[in-house]
């Protein structure tokens, strides 16, 4: 059998009750939300504090590692010093002496009948040579060697004949200035 319920409270009271329940619910939700936000803020703060400790520990480890490396300062100096010197020696050993190269070039280009009486290099590293020969064929051969790029391996760029003379006994004397590469 169905029960009949009759609410005899006035409609205004019912509305007030409903409104109070709604307010109470919103208040609870608001407070709960605020508490959650505060807890998140506290958690991030704690996380940062822990992280700062980690950072400090990392800095300390770095300082310790630096101190360890510095304790081997002697070894490091030795290695750096040795390495720098070896690098420089390597560079120096790659050097070739221009005068010596020029001397060997002249030696290679001189025919047997021509002899050098003076050999020098000026400030521009040009070869200044005084030579003599009793044989015109050797003189010609010498000039050919000086001017032929295949014979002089393209190392000579210019030959100046400063003087060329023939003495009474038939010997040739010449003074040359030779520009090399």
């Amino acid at each position: 059998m169905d029960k009949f319920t009759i609410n005899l409270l006035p409609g205004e009271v019912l509305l007030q009750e409903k409104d109070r329940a709604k307010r109470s619910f919103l208040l609870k939700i608001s407070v709960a939300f605020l508490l959650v936000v505060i807890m998140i803020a506290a958690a991030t703060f704690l996380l940062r504090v822990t992280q700062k400790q980690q950072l400090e520990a990392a800095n300390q480890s770095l300082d310790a590692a630096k101190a360890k490396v510095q304790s081997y300062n002697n070894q490091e100096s030795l290695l750096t010093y040795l390495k720098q010197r070896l690098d420089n020696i390597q560079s120096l050993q790659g050097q070739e002496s221009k005068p010596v190269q020029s001397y060997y070039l002249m030696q290679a280009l001189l025919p047997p009948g021509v002899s050098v009486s003076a050999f020098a290099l000026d400030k521009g590293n040009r070869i200044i040579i005084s030579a003599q020969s009793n044989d015109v064929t050797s003189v010609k051969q010498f000039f050919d060697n000086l001017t032929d790029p295949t014979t002089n391996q393209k190392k000579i760029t210019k030959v100046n004949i400063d003087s060329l003379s023939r003495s009474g006994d038939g010997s040739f004397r010449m003074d040359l200035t030779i520009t090399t590469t």
Partner: protein
Amino acid sequence: MNDKIIELAKKYSLYGWPLISILISVIIAFSVIFPQIFKYFQTQKDIAALDQRRQALETKASSLAAINTENYQANLEIVKTVLPESEDLPASIGQIEALLSQANLELQDINFASGQSGLAAGVTATNKNVVGLQNFQIKLDVTGSRSALQAFMQDVQDAPQVMRITGLDISNGTSGNVSATLTLVSYYEGPPGNISNVEQPLAGLTAAENDLLSKLQQQVATSPVNTGVTVLPKRGKDNPFQ
């Protein structure tokens, strides 16, 4: 008017607490949570970088610990023989005398002049990148046979202490001999100033450098020139002209 305001306040008083709560939450989020989270990631990166630096330093320390100081010191002495620390005139004269005697040339005159920094003029170099290198000039007047002069020029090139001929003037002398004026440069390199920064990566000796070192050891050991590996105590000035 006042009635209207009271009525509006009553109507929206329901949302008061939620609004206050949201406002405070927003303030907390922007002033605390977001900056902290941002800083957290930044600091994590810093910690990782510090850790990387520490690892590099530890690797460097273990490499340095493995260095045999005595061995390196001995190698350095050999290298100093080839490239002295200062204008060691006695050593240079000693080498020149030995080379002249070996080549059978007669020394007529010897002069010294201060040089310059870096590589000397009158040489061709494959690599001009030299650090801290200095040189001084030695001018020699010699007499002897042409073959002896050639042998001397070759010996200078191969001599333990690095010297190069930068000037050559040859003229025919008496009885088939030649007189020659040779300008030599002798190189030296002062000790380095400040050694590297502690965090600079350690570069060990390369294979080419080790090969060069072995070559120098052999060269110094077999050289007829008394190069002074057994270093005598220093007396007086290295360079009397300074």
